[in-house]
């Protein structure tokens, strides 16, 4: 294991190092913000890391996973609020695992087919189980049925997988030493291919979400939104293009006033837009048909990390039974269950957005006092909306209930990657 670590340490090329460090700096200094931008950049970074990663002959997937995890740990530590970074890292890890499994299944399948005649009694159960499991995960859509069927064979498949990945070298050396070069190239190639698809998905997810707009927005509706989300703009404009006439209330979202930018964009696209103060949300919600907002991240329990103020909007919407709809691309789905998200998944921004520096210096007495400052200014960036306040999630795969989000998320991530921190090596 230690040897492997050293190996991967040396294997990362210096230019990827520079890339990673550059990205880390940007994350730390909050140069990159917004889940979409960070997700895209993370995926691109990981792609270049993978492509430049020199893989050992044995246990290629393990090495790749290890390298990505090492980077992922750094990235998530740099900015714990940008959950999308962790999501993408986990997603890439999942892709590597899946590609590896499909390659292994193919090779084992080939192997078992080859050895059907001579070593039939040798290890038929395991190989069959692996092949079946692989076939299921790759071919069949996820369902309760699948889950149940998977139960008995899962351990066996995992054992086989473990066997094949950890001691793949031995078996490969014995059996398929000839096509190991081609296989290593194939794994890398496949992974990069899939990561490219992922990047594509991130770039186009809002289009797929926007396609569903006409199913949700009708004539003469009044829609309330808060925060500036590109997905929401696309969603509303898609409905507008379908000749639906409706009006939009935009809460301005002080102190960052993202609502102003959103309103500007909507007005430019010809939507009837009314800007209201955040305090008027409760007053206006009784005349609103639907609240449509973007999210910063969607947690596995269906809770939403969203721009500050949305919890208030969600409460008001619940009070007046107004549907609260959250639009979320795949990169926003986080496989973690939040603990105390109001505080732990939040970020306090500069007080200067609320009060100018020194504005109250004339009336504050710094000379005396017990050391604890008389004045605190709290300026959080995010709000947590619990799942019970959300009526519907619209992702690129369709609409989902908050209670279903855990399952949707389970499709995209593998359980082994939930914790990115690597165990300290002994």
């Amino acid at each position, binding site marked *: 294991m230690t040897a492997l670590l050293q190996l991967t340490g040396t294997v990362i090329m210096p230019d990827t190092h520079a890339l990673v460090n550059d990205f880390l700096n940007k994350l730390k200094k909050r140069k990159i913000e917004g889940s979409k931008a960070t997700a895209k950049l993370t995926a691109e970074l990981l792609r270049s890391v993978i492509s430049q990663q020199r893989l050992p002959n044995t246990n290629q997937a393990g090495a790749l996973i290890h390298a990505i995890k090492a980077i992922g740990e750094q990235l998530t530590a740099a900015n714990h609020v940008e959950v999308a970074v962790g999501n993408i890292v986990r997603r890439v890890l999942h892709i590597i695992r899946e590609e590896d499994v499909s390659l292994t299944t193919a090779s084992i399948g080939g192997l078992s087919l080859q050895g059907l005649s001579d070593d039939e009694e040798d290890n038929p159960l395991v190989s069959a189980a692996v092949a079946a499991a692989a076939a299921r995960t790759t071919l069949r859509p996820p369902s309760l049925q699948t889950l149940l069927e998977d139960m008995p064979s899962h351990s066996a498949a995992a054992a086989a997988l473990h066997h094949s990945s950890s001691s793949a070298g031995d078996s490969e050396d014995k059996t398929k030493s000839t096509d190991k070069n081609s296989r290593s190239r194939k794994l890398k190639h496949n992974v990069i291919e899939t990561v490219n698809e992922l990047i594509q998905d991130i770039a186009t997810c809002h289009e797929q979400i926007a396609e569903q707009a006409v199913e949700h927005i009708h004539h003469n509706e009044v829609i309330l939104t808060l925060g500036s989300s590109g997905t929401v703009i696309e969603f509303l404009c898609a409905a507008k293009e379908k000749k639906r006439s409706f009006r939009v209330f935009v809460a*301005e979202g002080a102190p960052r006033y993202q609502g102003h930018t959103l309103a*500007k964009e909507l007005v430019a696209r010809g939507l009837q*837009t009314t800007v209201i103060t955040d305090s008027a949300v409760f007053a206006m919600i009784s005349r609103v048909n639907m609240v449509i907002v973007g999210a910063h991240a969607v947690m596995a329990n269906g809770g939403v990390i969203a721009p500050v103020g949305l919890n208030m909007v969600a409460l008001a919407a619940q009070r007046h039974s107004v549907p609260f709809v959250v639009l979320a691309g795949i990169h926003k789905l986080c496989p973690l269950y939040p603990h105390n998200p109001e505080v732990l998944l939040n970020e306090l921004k500069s007080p200067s957005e609320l009060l100018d520096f020194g504005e109250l210096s004339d009336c504050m007495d710094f000379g005396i006092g017990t050391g604890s400052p008389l004045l605190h200014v709290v300026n959080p960036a995010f709000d947590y909306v619990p799942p019970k306040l959300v009526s519907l999630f619209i992702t690129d795969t369709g609409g989902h209930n908050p209670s279903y989000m855990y399952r949707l998320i389970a499709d995209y991530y593998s359980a082994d990657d939930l914790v990115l921190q690597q165990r300290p090596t002994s």
Partner: protein
Amino acid sequence: MDPRRAPRTVIDPKVRQVGFFAPPDRSQSVPLSQSSNSPSSPPLSDLSPSGNSLSPVMIPPPRHLSDLSSLPITAGLPPTRLSPPVHRFSGESVVPIGSYNPSEFASPSVGDLFEDKNARSPGPRRSRGGGGSAKIASSLPAGGFELPPEVKPKSLTTVSVVSNLRPNVTEKVGEKSIESQDGSGANSKQPLKEKTSKAERRALQEAQRAAKAAAKGGNGVANIKTGKANSVQKKDNASVAAPSEKRLADHKDKDRKKDAPHPRMQFDDATRVEKAKKRAIVKQTEVRNRVELFRHLPQYEHGTKLPHLEYKFFSLNSNSVHPAVYKVGLRYLAGDISGGNARCIAMLQAFQESIMEYSAPPERALNRDLTAKINSYISYLIECRPLSISMGSAIKFVKTRIANLPLTLSESEAKANLLSEINHFINEKIILADKVIVRHAVTKVRDGDILLTYGSSSAVEMILLHAHELGKQFRVVIVDSRPKLEGRLLLRRLVAKGVSCTYVHINATSYIMHEVTRVFLGASSVLANGTVYSRVGTACVAMVANACGVPVIVCCEAYKFHERVQLDSICCNELGDPDAISKVHGRKEVNHLMDIADNENLQLLNLTYDVTPSDYVSMIITDYGMIPPTSVPVIVRELRKEQIWSG
């Protein structure tokens, strides 16, 4: 039951007849104390319930009893009808703006108003015809000279109506003693009584009270009607015929309509808006892109005319507003004075100033003329900014007091009386009430508390400062919201006093609410269904507090309670300056909306108030004590009774 009914049906018309001079309803509170000298009896405000403001809500006295006991009072009243001069009833048509006003001749500077007073006071009377508007010239002489012919037809018609409809009433004509009248009236009207159901009678009684209130208000039909009725009695007090029951009934009907809260001006009614514009002193321009949902409210471009109006202050003789009132109006418009209490006190003080310099024209009664004048001031103030409910309550009070001034008082006495009454109102209803509220609320602050407040409420500020003075250890979270950012002012004042504070924007309420132990909120008004009408955003804060299980305590003086009900914040509200939304003060980089403000797709909505549902409110602290929101209607009812009694 029948012995009770008998006197009442007879009394009813009489109470109404007397209505203009003396408050008959007062008899309900002090049944026998004023049997003979009721018109000039001293005001009972000292006995008013708010005097012992710490007492729990009172149980109203039983109605039947008081009705019975008010019998002898009516016997004592007729002589007083003789005393008032006839010209008192001349002003049947209320002249809203063009009426006499000392301010027409006011000198530009406010400072030397006092020295001008003496010199000015006789002036207006002589120069009115020439200097005033055409309206004044036409209306006022008429009031003086055409009176006798005007009154006569009315008395004739009334008498004819009476003789047509109720032949049996004519037995009362003549110098009959009231005692016998009571007896005979009761007997002769026996069949009639049976027709009127219990509900109807009750309605009548209510309507009487309302008639008084409305008459005091000096606006509209009720006023004229009572004026007519009274003048009829004046003319032939020897042969007073009790007005017929039928006439009485439809009279009551109209008064009853007056009793309901007056519907506000709806600004989507084009004709009425046009009319209002013609009268307006403050010509405001309307906002370009109006929000469809709020067509019924005025949406003005804020403060655009302010420089012009300030300039007009120096040429005030062209309009009819007293300089002090004018100044207050401008300060409302500019936003210098905000907050229910501050606005109310400023208005009352301006009224005081104008009353001080007021002198009634010779041919008009002081209370009629002054009411008209106050009305014109109020319509001016409404143009500057819609009235707050606190102001509405104060105006009602002032008008009641003016209408109830005993006629025997000389002008200077009446003025002194009014001034002291207004002072009394300010002291008792606002300042003392706040003190009582603070005393109650401080008991709810414990050591180690984290108190959250929203915006800047004067009552809450007093509570916090008092608790700090008492040495309680607590922390204050001040929630603020755009565009007014009133919380900053509160923050500044509290921090200067050494209270430790946390300052957040309203969006972060749910972040900070987890650590808060109590929420103290101010209110612009508390409505009869328990909803709290307050600065926009209060509802959001109360909602989040409710969701987090934090008690919400609303502090509101009882004079701000109102019998109106409201379910949402849209039907009745006030719209602020829309440009305040697009302008982000001090943050140039976020002023995205400035350049597209003219785009027809963009509307800016700046609501001023919102309505907090009563289930978010744990407790309302008022000068009557700490009550749940469900008890608000009780306070409202008690207040109304008090107003009528003491009025």
